[in-house]
């Protein structure tokens, strides 16, 4: 794990350096980006090699304050959740190079970069923490640093209020986590995570529910989602991208981790998660439909996607509890895949929203319109992101949802409550998909298409170069994962390797299905190209014909 800690040190340097050289505004940004990108590249390399060559999970432990130990462990679950952290964070900083362009606020910008680096490091530490004090410490640093990122624009009253709300929810959630840790300590008498499996059944249930509430307030599970639609619009857009794309996934990571540590496949856990997922998903998208503020809408859509991920986890847990191997594999892999995909397309969408806000200063989509002609690159990337988040093939969002559907269908032979819940999960996924389509056609249609409905929208210009570059690369990733999903799903299968699932399911049978999906996606793209080509040829022929008739 030495490379991992080295990468974190480099990232932290990238955060500290701007504080000293903030007077050279452009140099500060470039230096920060270079260091963070180098650190993240190193971290990503280390993580991927840990994921692709699974062996004994690497562990490190240092004594701290004489009574505690700081111990870290990188198993496949940690490694998988580290990928979005190391992938999205440097892109967000690249985006910010053109987004943060107020040299008169150089110290404030430098502070923002500092806390951004602290957030990246603390998220990485959360994903690797291996005992209670380490986890609690990393979790708190993560919450506090993201609080400072949210209140970047502290002179604005609404921003301060949003930051306050976020702080309450972060600390309230942490309170539930500490309660869960207290229950654990009461039974095990030490701080190690490994002993959680020895708890008695009732204690396990209490720990799981407390932790679920605590992690849920970070992830944005309904009704603990209230801070999201305030904090995301208040934060600068590249921060919203990281918070919504990556940080709230730490809540999901916590739920997966506590489930893995408790090690009991009880059906009750899966039912709690599944029901919470269905409620969160459907209500999230329903609330999103009613919002006019682009960033508020995206925040609610994050709630919806957390719901989809929870449905995936719930399906996987049901599979484990009922000994259905295919269901367990596809449910968990689908949830992991959706974590990865959502980090990509949600940060893309937040960056698109940021570009609109930056150029037009308008938040309400009702006053926008016609932007695709004035911001062609932003508009096209945003369109791709919307297609991906609506879960439509051939884009990345479909792959995660397909895995979850596939897992749910495998659970249809179950009986009683499990069967009803599985069928309900399929229906909720279908409804969520349909409503997400409605929601994002509204955003794209009103903001980017048609005619501008305000002076700000009419005078918009294309976003800066690094902003375009980031959005285009994320959009390409959405299409790539949608057309060639197999290597990415393999990664998700590796990621769930250290969860104790039911044996007897060969992921290769599923990879075959994925190959067919990429063939179908390719076939569809070919068909679209062919029909468009025919359409163009035809209109040329008709045009020439009409021209001849007109002159003749």
């Amino acid at each position, binding site marked *: 794990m030495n490379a991992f800690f080295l990468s974190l040190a480099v990232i932290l340097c990238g955060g500290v350096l701007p504080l000293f050289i903030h007077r050279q505004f452009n140099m500060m940004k470039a230096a920060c980006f270079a260091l963070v990108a180098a650190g993240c590249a190193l971290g990503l390399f280390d993580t991927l090699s840990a994921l692709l060559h699974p062996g004994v999970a690497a562990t490190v432990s240092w004594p701290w304050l004489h009574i505690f130990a700081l111990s870290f462990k990188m198993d496949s679950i940690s490694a998988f959740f580290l990928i979005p952290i190391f992938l999205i964070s440097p892109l967000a900083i690249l985006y910010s190079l053109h987004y943060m362009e107020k040299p008169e606020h150089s110290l404030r910008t430098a502070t923002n970069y500092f806390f951004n680096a602290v957030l990246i490091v603390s998220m990485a530490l959360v994903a690797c923490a291996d005992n209670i004090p380490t986890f609690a410490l990393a979790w708190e640093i993560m919450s506090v640093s993201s609080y400072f990122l949210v209140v970047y624009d502290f002179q604005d009253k609404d921003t301060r209020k949003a930051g306050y709300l976020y702080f309450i929810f972060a600390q309230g959630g942490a309170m539930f986590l500490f309660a869960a840790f207290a229950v654990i300590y009461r039974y095990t008498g030490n701080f190690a995570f490994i002993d959680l499996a020895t708890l008695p059944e009732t204690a396990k249930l209490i720990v799981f529910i407390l932790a679920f509430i605590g992690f849920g307030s970070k992830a944005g599970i309904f009704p603990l989602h209230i801070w999201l639609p305030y904090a995301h619009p208040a934060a600068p857009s590249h921060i919203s991208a990281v918070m919504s794309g990556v940080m709230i996934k730490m809540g999901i990571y916590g739920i997966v981790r506590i489930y893995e540590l408790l090690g009991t496949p009880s059906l009750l856990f899966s039912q709690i998660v599944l029901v919470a997922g269905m409620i969160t998903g459907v209500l999230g998208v329903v609330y999103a439909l009613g919002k006019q503020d682009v960033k508020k809408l995206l925040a609610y859509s994050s709630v919806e996607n957390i719901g989809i991920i929870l449905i995936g986890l719930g399906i996987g847990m049901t599979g484990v509890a009922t000994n259905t191997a295919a269901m367990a594999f596809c449910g968990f892999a689908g949830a992991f895949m959706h974590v990865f995909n959502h980090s990509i397309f949600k940060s893309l969408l937040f960056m698109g929203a940021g570009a609109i806000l930056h150029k037009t200063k308008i938040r309400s989509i009702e006053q926008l319109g016609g932007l*695709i002609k004035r911001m062609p690159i932003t508009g096209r990337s945003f369109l791709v992101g919307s297609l991906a988040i*609506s879960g439509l093939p051939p884009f990345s969002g479909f792959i995660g949802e397909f895995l979850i559907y596939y897992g749910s269908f495998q659970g249809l032979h179950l009986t009683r409550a499990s069967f009803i819940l599985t*069928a309900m999960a399929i229906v909720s996924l279908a*409804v969520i998909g*349909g409503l997400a389509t*409605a929601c994002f056609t509204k955003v794209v*249609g009103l903001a980017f298409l048609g005619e501008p409905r305000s002076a700000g929208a009419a005078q918009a210009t294309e976003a800066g170069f690094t902003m375009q570059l980031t959005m285009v690369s994320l959009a390409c990733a959405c299409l790539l994962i949608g057309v060639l999903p197999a290597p990415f799903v393999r990664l998700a299968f590796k990621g769930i390797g250290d969860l104790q699932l039911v044996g007897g399911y060969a992921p290769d049978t599923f990879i075959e299905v994925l190959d067919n999906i990429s063939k179908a996606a390719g076939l569809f793209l070919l068909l679209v190209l062919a*029909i468009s080509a025919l*359409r163009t040829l035809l209109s040329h022929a008709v045009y020439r014909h009409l021209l001849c008739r007109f002159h003749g």
Partner: protein
Amino acid sequence: MESIVSFCFALLAAPLLAAVIMKVKAYVAGKQGPPLFIKYYTLAKLFRKGSVYSNSTSFVFKLGPVISCCSAIMVLLFFPFAGVAPVFSFHGDVIILFYLLGLGRFFTILAALDTASPFEGMGAAREAYFSTLAEATIFVVLALFFRLTGSLSFAGYFTGTAVINLWNPPAGSLLLLVVVAMFMVLLTENSRVPVDDPATHLELTMIHEVMILDHSGPDLALIELGAYLKLFFYSAFITRLLYPFQLENVYQNGIIFYGIVCLIYVAVGITESIMARYRMHLVPKFILTSFALVFFATILTMEIVR
């Protein structure tokens, strides 16, 4: 080879069958009606024209018709007509196909919003709402079929050994509910009476028609073709439910299959003739009724399928 011929035949037959509805409606109204080949003439006429684009539109407006037509063609490529194996098929294809239809809808809605016309926006909102409800019904049907056959592809439902069979008690009796529900979904997804009136004259009351008002020439032709193919797909789906049998002779199969498809088109025509369209607020109830029917059928399988 047989599959490709069957697919091409379906492509060619779809416009003819769409004219059957018009003919039936005309007959019930005591008129002679247009010739049976009217839809081919319409397509040929539209393809020979040029397109007109308003200054408000962007590339999305031109992409909409192409994608909605392609998604309908894709579905037909995976569907086994008359028991002939489809051109392509794999386990799980139904999910991607219904989502591709969703993609077609996504672009139709965007193309409508691209015209900057408030009428089209209204139609788009209705279409998005109603088709979401219909999607729920469709996925419950898929869940029910998976429970009955353990398969996730059209080829698995309608060909092979574990075929969906209406005439096979006791599970078959549940399929009666599915047939009724799928007929309701057919009416919804293809904008027929009582959900939407394809022949209405006022933009305020339209759903699908208002979304394509600004399309012209080949663009409109592609949209129309896509609509015929989609209608044909849903009718073929119900046909295979009603008549799951397989004869030795390919031609006999084909004749019976297309005969029943024709009957379904006639049923659509009769429905349109004897019913008025619902007021807007009754439409969701209509679609949710189909959902209730299939969900009920799915719950009943808990006792029947062990």
